[in-house]
């Protein structure tokens, strides 16, 4: 967990809640994001990611709780030009060419980046003279990214930015995001693509049914969901003594191969080496993020039947 002086920088969500009728989209979310962090809001559809993002951007008023962006409410941060956003399902303004649209967006901000630099960074330069209504899905996404970036905001908020984009386009997109993050910008993105959260975020905030169910680096989240598996070749060992090792939940053996399911693989490995000699062909398999995701988003309050909304 990042810890940050709540009065100073970063993004601070306190007891943030929002309901739509009977549906509690976001339920008492507390979250602190330090300046310069790249954070993924990961969760299934309807988990409350977009509602959370809309409240961070000041587009939706929370029922309860507060949002502070670098110490001020969202509306003030927006007016100061600190925020750049890519919203879900937007399409660029019509009757404009790509360069004109990005120029228009730049004019709203006090210290915008040079339009040509942004067009180049986002890969939109090659179709800068095209009408905004004549773009492919991938091109439109680049243009929307360019409009989010051109104001040189300190906080970049991306709501499912790569939905419907092909693999190559995604990789280019995330490379550009990484370039932005390396300049010290704070990046918050919502996604339901596990690989993206895993590969591009410093930290993953896992959301399910309007609540944060896990929060930390990808490796920690995987660990939090429990099992890592150790496979090794270790002839002639009693299964019961393997199962009794510290950090091991259960053990199996198939011939000379032993398979240990671990709650703490590091401790288990120490115990394994400390107790037995001649351990070979060690292989530690992380629980995948997918396993963690499924476990954490379905186990948690499974008695709760309420459905979230986007």
């Amino acid at each position: 967990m990042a810890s940050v002086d709540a009065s100073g920088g970063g993004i601070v969500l306190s007891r943030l809640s929002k309901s739509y009728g009977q549906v509690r989209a976001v339920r008492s979310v507390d979250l602190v994001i330090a300046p310069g962090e790249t954070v993924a809001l990961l969760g299934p559809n309807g988990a409350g990611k977009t509602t959370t993002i809309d409240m961070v951007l000041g587009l939706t008023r929370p029922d309860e709780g507060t949002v502070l962006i670098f110490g001020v409410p969202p509306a003030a941060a927006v007016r100061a030009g600190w925020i750049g956003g890519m919203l879900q399902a937007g399409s660029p303004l019509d009757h404009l060419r790509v360069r004109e649209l990005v120029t228009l967006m730049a004019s709203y901000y006090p210290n915008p980046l040079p339009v040509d630099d942004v067009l180049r960074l986002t890969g939109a330069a090659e179709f800068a003279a095209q009408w905004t209504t004549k773009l492919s899905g991938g091109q439109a996404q680049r243009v929307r990214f360019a409009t989010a970036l051109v104001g040189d905001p300190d906080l970049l908020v991306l709501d499912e930015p790569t939905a419907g984009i092909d693999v190559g386009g995604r990789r280019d997109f995330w490379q550009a995001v990484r370039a932005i993050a390396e300049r010290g910008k704070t990046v918050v993105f919502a996604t339901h693509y596990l690989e993206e959260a895993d590969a591009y975020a410093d930290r993953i905030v896992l959301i399910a049914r309007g609540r944060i169910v896990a929060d930390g680096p990808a490796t920690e989240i995987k660990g939090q969901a429990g099992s890592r598996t150790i496979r090794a070749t270790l002839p002639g060992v009693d299964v019961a003594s393997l199962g009794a090792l510290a950090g091991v939940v259960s053990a199996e053996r198939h011939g000379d191969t032993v398979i240990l399911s671990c709650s703490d693989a590091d401790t288990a490995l120490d115990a394994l080496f400390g107790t037995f000699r001649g351990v070979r062909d060690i292989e530690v398999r992380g629980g995948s993020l997918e396993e963690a995701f499924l476990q954490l988003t379905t186990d948690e309050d499974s008695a709760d039947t309420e459905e979230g909304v986007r």
Partner: protein
Amino acid sequence: MTGATHLRYEILRTVRNRRFFAVTLALPLVLFYAIASANRHARTDGISFPLYFMTGMAAYGAMFAAVSPGGRIAADRARGWTRQMRITPLRARTYFAAKVVTAYLAAIPALILLCLAGASLGVRLTAAQWLEMAGLLLVGLAPFIVMGIILGHLVAADALAPAVGGLVVLFALFGGAYGAFFNTGAMLTVVKLLPSFWLVQAGKAALVVGRWPAEGWIVVAAWTVVLVLAASLAYRRDTGRA
């Protein structure tokens, strides 16, 4: 200057919308020539018929042109662009000011074109009369500009064209832009409460003394104030701001 660039692109987007000009310029022009040229030597309401009909069609075209830019908010909304703009430092008042200026600028070609058409059928006015006519028309357009903004916030993008078209035609009809069908008795009292009645009168005020009494100012101002209040409610409802 954020406002200046925004206004420049807002105007550019309007100018590039060819369908918009087809409706706001071509329609009143065609109606004018079709009807006025056949009656060019007739007299109506104390003035020559081409002049009479020119003012009506100028009011009609200008009304259409003035409602349309606000109505385009519906398209921006459908594209998710009003939300996008709300997370930029662009102020709502700058956005609406640009809409109003654009609407006025959009109405001017319709006015000029109809005046030229009028002149081509023998309408002759002094420079002062042209200026007074244009000035009062711009005043009379104010409620229609705000009406466009309300429609843009309340009506879905695909329903906007018929909504704008229908509303403008009704206002034009009852206001007397096509001819004074309702200028008698109780009906006159009612139509005098319409802003379009005064918009049509604005065209004639420079020619016939007494066509723009205090009542004109009051009706136009009242509509404008009420519509501005309604527009701010529509905007708040639309954007979820309490």
